[in-house]
């Protein structure tokens, strides 16, 4: 083990330190593997019961920006174990190479799944990532 890894481990021994790095990026293939959802964690830790925005990029399988209009991208989130979704629906806007969805609101702790649906012609394809708020 590298020494600095050891220090990190010790510091987080109480579990109090938030594990996620502000610049953490999660990449996830869409369900039919036709595009990649790349989500940036901003804020690093999803706030409980406070509004936030989620930033992501959509890439093709070669890693280039996906050719899709912002109107054809929609975002939603659910708590599958609780059988309910969010109380608000986010709008999606474009900022440069990123899409920004908000307001998002996770009003309960537990596992949330975030869905990004991309419509291309008659086909809508979904990519999803899950976050657990404790």
């Amino acid at each position, binding site marked *: 083990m590298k020494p600095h890894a050891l220090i990190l481990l010790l510091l987080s021994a109480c579990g109090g330190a938030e594990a996620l790095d502000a610049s953490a990026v999660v990449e996830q293939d869409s369900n039919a593997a036709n595009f990649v959802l790349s989500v940036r964690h901003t804020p690093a830790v999803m706030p409980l019961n406070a509004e936030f925005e989620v930033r992501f990029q959509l890439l093709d399988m070669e890693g280039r920006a996906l050719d899709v209009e912002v109107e054809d991208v929609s975002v939603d989130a659910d708590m599958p174990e609780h059988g309910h*979704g969010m109380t608000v629906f986010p709008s999606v806007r474009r900022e440069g190479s990123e899409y920004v969805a908000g307001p998002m609101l996770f009003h309960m702790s537990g596992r949330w799944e975030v869905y990004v649906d991309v419509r291309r012609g008659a086909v809508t394809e979904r990519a999803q990532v899950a976050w657990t708020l404790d």
Partner: protein
Amino acid sequence: MDLGLKSILGIALLSALMGCQDAPGTAVEFGDAERKQLGRLSPLGDVPPDPTNRFADDPNAARLGHWLFFDERLSLDGQVSCATCHVPTHAFSDPKSLAKGMGLGERHAPSLINVAYGRWFGWGGRADSLWMQALGPLENPLELGGHRDLIADLFHDDPDLKRAYETTFGPLPNESDVTASDEVFVNVGKSIAAFERLLVRGNSRFDQFAAALASNRSDGIEALSDSEQRGLHLFLTRANCTQCHLGPNFTDSEFHNTAAPPHPEGRRDDPGRFQGIAHVQGSEFKASGIYSDDRNGTTANRVQHLVKSSDSFGAFKTPSLRNLAGRAPFMHQGQFEDLDAVLHFYDTREGASVTSHHQEQILAPLRLSPSELSDLHAFLGSLEGAALDPSLLVPPAGPSLSD
């Protein structure tokens, strides 16, 4: 390993150990997960700002609102005021189950203590601001049954009211002006809201305990008895209460279907949040409307983004659990006479209303032992905040601070 690295490791180890240290003398162990939750529940903190009401923290407005809260002349028959149902000595709630003003209502009048911490107002969240909320009962035929034209007349006819109004809002609009009574009406709402923002009770014994635990001080731990500490631990863990009763005011300010059995005289099919959304989005007094002082703010944006779905049918706002003493009965129809009845319902789910389609899947019977139930009950009793200034419980000498 060189010396420098060793000392870094030493410090890291030491601080890790210190961070893990148990606060001395708790009756049950509060682990990291519980401590994290405690940090979200306490302290209550300041009342959040309300940018939709630029008079929200204006003392003159609050004084006028204080007066109006008790003023029965605002009602149709001159006998009903806000205080008729929100009884000051009953934690500004109603000892009756279903509210009775000019007529018998369909819901229970909730407590107004700490109401300004909310995101939505009314059991179904029919209003997105306190001032918008206040306008509802003034004209509701079952509550005060008044009318904005008559209210504007009252301000023109009573020199004390006129003076108080003009101190805060400027000249009373001319009655021939078509928007005059709307303007006065809105400012009445904003004044009453400014008063309601003063009804705050925090710093309970629970908060003293939480502060002590957070700083690993033994001093303050004794604020909760052993039974109350066990009850708190249950509240945070097995009883699952913080799924909904979370945040500094012990509510998520959102809506859930607990399927509480209806009151014998109450409605069985109250749409709850479903209707609340339609109401707030359709109102001229919402946060994005022309009378709001923050038409493009967070609240205005939130209202536009509400999900309209049948999931919200029969869902009601999670009430705060601070200051439960002296405000029974409980729930949106006052269907539970006391706290034991509420806890019995969560424990057994007995009588859960079968007509609701969307009850929360997370509400399963808890099956606690009698001693666990009494611990939980004891803990809820530790959430009583410091008493209100007694002058807030009675009408002031006059509508102006100089009276």
